[in-house]
């Protein structure tokens, strides 16, 4: 079943892709085949492959239960927040929280995850900022 749904999604993506490609505004100085042909070729391959998934699906993968799925979504959300907060809070503070969260969800005790968050943040800061001179996000406190 998963493969059939995947095929349907793939087909939809291929169709949207074709539609988007057809709306590309051609410029007057185009080459012979223009900017649309290659996307059309790609969409054809994608669409045919998707049809194949729908007709001949593989055996069902083992999907995680609702709890684990929620876990993965939450981790992704935390990472997206992390990306947003980097310039606001600075590298060290945001990293402490993000690392601590991931470490906690991967099975550390709350205190240990905070410890590993602090160590990871300062460790990466020391190696990449102080030793290698890489530019990390600076917050209001300067680190």
């Amino acid at each position: 079943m998963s493969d059939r749904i995947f095929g349907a999604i793939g087909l939809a993506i291929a169709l949207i892709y074709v539609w988007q490609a057809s709306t590309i505004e051609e410029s007057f100085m185009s080459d012979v085949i223009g900017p649309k042909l290659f996307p059309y070729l790609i969409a054809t391959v994608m669409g045919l492959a998707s049809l194949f998934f729908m007709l001949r699906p593989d055996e069902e993968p083992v999907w995680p239960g609702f709890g684990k799925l929620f876990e993965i979504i939450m981790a992704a959300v935390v990472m997206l927040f992390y990306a947003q907060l980097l310039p606001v809070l600075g590298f060290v503070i945001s990293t402490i929280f993000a690392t601590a969260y991931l470490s906690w969800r991967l099975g550390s005790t709350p205190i240990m995850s905070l410890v590993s968050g602090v160590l990871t943040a300062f460790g990466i800061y020391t190696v990449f900022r102080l030793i290698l001179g890489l530019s990390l996000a600076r917050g209001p406190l300067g680190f």
Partner: protein
Amino acid sequence: MDVFASLSDGFLIALSWENLMFALLGCFLGTIMGALPGLGPSNGVAILIPLAFTLGLAPTPALILLTSVYYGAMYGGRVSSILLNIPGDEPALMTCLDGYPMAQAGRAGEALAISGIASFVGAFIATWGLVFLAPQLVKVALLFGPAEYFALFTLAFATLGGLSSKNQAKSAFAAALGLAFATVGMDDQTGVARFTFGEVHLFDGIDFLVVIVGMFALSEVFIFLEHHKASDLKHVEPIKIGRITPSWAMIKYCTPTMLRATGLGFIAGVLPGAGASLGSFIAYSMEKRLVDKKGTFGKGDPRGVAAPEAGNNAAAGGALVPMLALGVPGSGTTAVLLAVLLAMNITPGPLLFTQNPDVVWGLIAALFIGNVMLLILNIPMVGLFTRVLLIPPRVLMPIVAMISFVGIYGVSGSTFDLMVMVIFGVLGWALRKLDVPLVPVVLGTLLGYAMEVNLRRALTISDGDYGVLVGSPLAIGLWTVAILGFVFPIVFGPMLRARMHAGRATDPKDLTDE
């Protein structure tokens, strides 16, 4: 011979103190990464590409650092195969067969040492093969026009799944998806925006580094989140290493095996669609048939460790031949090395050999040096590397995630790229669950631009006549191989795969009567 002259120039470049330091650092980091659970050669190198880029290293030192990491990770991968029976990547699958039984019999140290030596022999001889074969292939490649290149790219995608590919439709879908990512952004030849949905950040296109790091490194974090309960249990058992130096007698005993495995592995690496996993598989089954008179293979025969390790490292070296000479990677792992080159703004291919010989030969010399370093590093320090296995994923995986963020942020300084990376991480996780290979996606993103340029150039030259795509014997030959390479796994794949996995699925005792 001018090959030797070029090679000695390469050594002059690679033997500077700075470059030697990078090689040493790369070997060390790489071995640790390879040994760490959940970090293979591809992920390890993927995380480090943006870092090497932001540190502003010159192309040659950066390449030396990253190829050393790659080679080191190949060395390190066997540590977890032998000690824990967990292959780090697919080529290491065959090493588990005899490596783990040896470890259980208290001969882990010997198994590690002999696999280290076998890796060295395989990689060392394969690098010589690269030295002689690549310039020959360059001569052929100089005959290629745009139409031939387009056919060659198609060939690379068609054969990427390899002979053991599970589902060719999924490989094709993955490649198309990657190519679609590559079309996002400004079209170079006409200046029109494509698939940007009005988002300013997308006008430059999607940075392939974002795709690679998201797909390879972050998706691994999600996989661990999904499975973390199971992975915490494996680290409790104590590991006995035993003696870490193999006796001369054992090295002698394994030498013919290593040499045969190297030859087979190298050929498998050079040919499109075979790659390292097939290299180690062929080497192992060939040796088993040839020398396994007493039925000791699968029960801890050192030759059963030496054969796949030599085969897989020789295949890795062989795969560099088409990658450097044609600019088209023959296997998944070399795709990541292609990303390294492209990130350094170097386009591999025949012109690389004539225009930047210092890069090519410096790199090849670095491979030789890295090999020797790894051999020296590995035998005495294997104890240290085994301790790395004890780091629990709950500490390690967040660090992997954070270093990925640091690298990508360093390249672009934009939170938009970080968000795109997270999305690619989730996408990578979902695709892995659906058994869609990630390497074609990454390779599509890397090669999409060049593939389209060649298609359009060919058709511009022919003034829109599509016949030009099959207009030369060379092009027809490439198309034929591409089609055969795509169809062959559909016919013979199930059989081959069943054999490759039979060894691991069944009890080692049942393995002798094949």
